């Protein structure tokens, strides 16, 4: 199991290198930061000097080598816009994103599982039909649109929640619910079909024969067997949420990593974008590994070797 985990971490490290190369090259294709950093009346000489100062005059492979050497030592460079270490900036924004993603994820799993499993046990009922309609809506409606409608209805018209920003718990609710809708719908659909596959099994009937209550039959004997696909999706969703906060954070002016990435891209702040993407990618890799390791807990037949 330890060997498996280490092997997976090694592969993850390779992924991280790949991601850093892509983002490194892509950012340098996006434009010249000196055009934004210098005033309009700056001379070509000023520009050349600034490029030298930032190290942008060197060939791309050399620039990347310098980046990697520094990054390994924990130095992701200085932000050209905020004039502070890029990684420090990213880590300062990380808690806000984790808070948002964490709540959104909890909402998605709670609603998704509850509606999906109940849908499966009451197959064909009015509840089941209603859930199916909601799932289709939840998957079809774009996030940015939902966010804007929520702000209009619940913040502007009804005044229940603040329109944007971070502060009280009330600030958290609209962006978290907006982010949760789509994954909740996917989770509901998947847990419904996974449970339907399990509920017809003989061991479910056996659990009833033993005298288990219907709730124990479904939530203990049933759900544990439907858990693997559900856990897989949950892991992917949590990882996605950390990366997908960009849209929601922008709409609700939530000061997290997603918003930082957008601002940094517009400012051609290479160091910040690279640091933020590396953090998101690392989170993705670690969460995926964590999901793969929980399979062993969920299904005794899975061994890691």
């Amino acid at each position: 199991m330890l060997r498996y985990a280490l092997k997976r971490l090694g592969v993850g490290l390779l992924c991280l290198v790949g991601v850093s190369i892509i983002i490194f090259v892509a950012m340098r294709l996006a434009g010249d930061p000196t055009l934004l950093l210098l005033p309009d009346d700056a001379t070509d000489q000023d520009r050349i000097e600034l490029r030298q100062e930032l190290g942008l005059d060197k060939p791309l492979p050399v620039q990347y080598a310098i980046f990697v050497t520094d990054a390994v030592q924990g130095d992701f460079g200085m932000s050209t816009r905020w004039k502070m270490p890029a990684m420090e900036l990213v880590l300062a924004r990380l808690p806000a994103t984790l808070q948002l993603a964490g709540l959104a994820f909890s909402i998605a799993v709670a609603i998704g599982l509850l509606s999906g499993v109940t849908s499966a046990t009451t197959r064909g009922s009015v509840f089941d039909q209603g859930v199916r309609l909601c799932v289709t809506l939840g998957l079809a409606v774009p996030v940015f649109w939902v966010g804007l409608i929520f702000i209009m209805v619940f913040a502007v018209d009804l005044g229940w929640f603040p329109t944007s920003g971070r502060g009280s718990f009330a600030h958290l609710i609209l962006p978290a619910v907006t982010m949760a809708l789509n994954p909740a719908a996917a989770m509901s659909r998947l847990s419904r079909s996974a449970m339907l596959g399990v509920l017809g099994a003989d061991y479910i009937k056996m659990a009833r024969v033993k005298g288990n209550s219907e709730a124990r039959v479904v939530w203990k004997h049933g759900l544990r067997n439907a858990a693997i696909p559900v856990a897989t999706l949950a892991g992917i969703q949590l990882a996605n949420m950390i990366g997908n906060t960009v849209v929601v954070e922008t709409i609700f002016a939530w000061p997290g990593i997603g918003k930082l990435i957008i601002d940094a891209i517009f400012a051609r702040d290479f160091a910040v974008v690279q640091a933020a993407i590396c953090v998101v990618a690392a989170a993705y890799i670690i969460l995926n590994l964590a999901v793969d390791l929980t399979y062993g807990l969920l299904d005794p037949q899975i061994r890691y070797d």
Partner: protein
Amino acid sequence: MTQAPLLSVEDLRTYCYTRAGVVKAVDGVSFALERGDSLGLVGESGSGKSMTCNSILRLLPRPAARTVGGRVLWDGRDLLTLSEREMRSVRGREIGMILQDPLMSLNPVFTIANQVGEPFRLRGAAKSRSDLREKVLDVLRQVHIPSPEARLSQYPFEFSGGMRQRTVAAIALAGSPGLLIADEPTTSLDVTIQDQFLRLLRELQEETGMALILVTHDLGIVAETCNKVAVMYAGKIVEFGDVRQVLRSPAHPYTEALLKALPVPGTRQKRLYQIPGEPPNLLDPPAGCAFEPRCHRAMQACKNARPPIKRLSDGRQAACLALEAGEVQ
């Protein structure tokens, strides 16, 4: 009829509601069991054997099937009128059940100790963890699981088919039920294991005095294991009685035909006997006796009237018009 029987099923009717129409899967089944009895419930696939058992424990696939009439008297109560909560305390404790497929009856993600211990936990029968462990080991020993201590933390996939079936039996025993329903318990096991398992069932029955309903389509198994037999055809019991009487001199032409279809060891038969025709379409059953189209004793009257089940002079019961006309025996 001085003392009430242990289990008395009276005019049980369970219908299946399919898109094509209503199927009377169990159509007026009645029988009674005494303590220590073992009843063989035989008949071909679709004759309503399993449906009868599932109706007794109220484990029908809802909403497709529903018991629409009759009584199941157990210990002075009609099981069909109990609340779901009361029914749960009957299941597993008073009446146990062994399902057909041992490979599928155990939950793949829980340990053997967990699954065998569950009936004890559900009725709060274990005082402590070590007490529970002892009780689990006891029932595992009772069903002859070798070195049960080493088996506790294993999972079903680490067990052979025969061992899984014995574990299922251990789970049924854990509730110390007064009646055990075994629904074709050996169909998916090979013949040697099958024989071992049936011997185990008889042994357990002797030890505990529980009654047994054994669903099977194998008359040989019934002859070895049971003292009573009920032959089902198209949702009805066509013959019910003492196993030796019924197997030696069947009263109903269907039982007779079933026995004729058995291979006889030591003789060279070119072809096994086959009952002509097919079982009736239960969506549109014949107006008269359901077996009439395949019966060699069929009379004109059989086409029109359903034969009632009648007690014969030797105490057994059979449903055949020819019997009344004195044609059989």
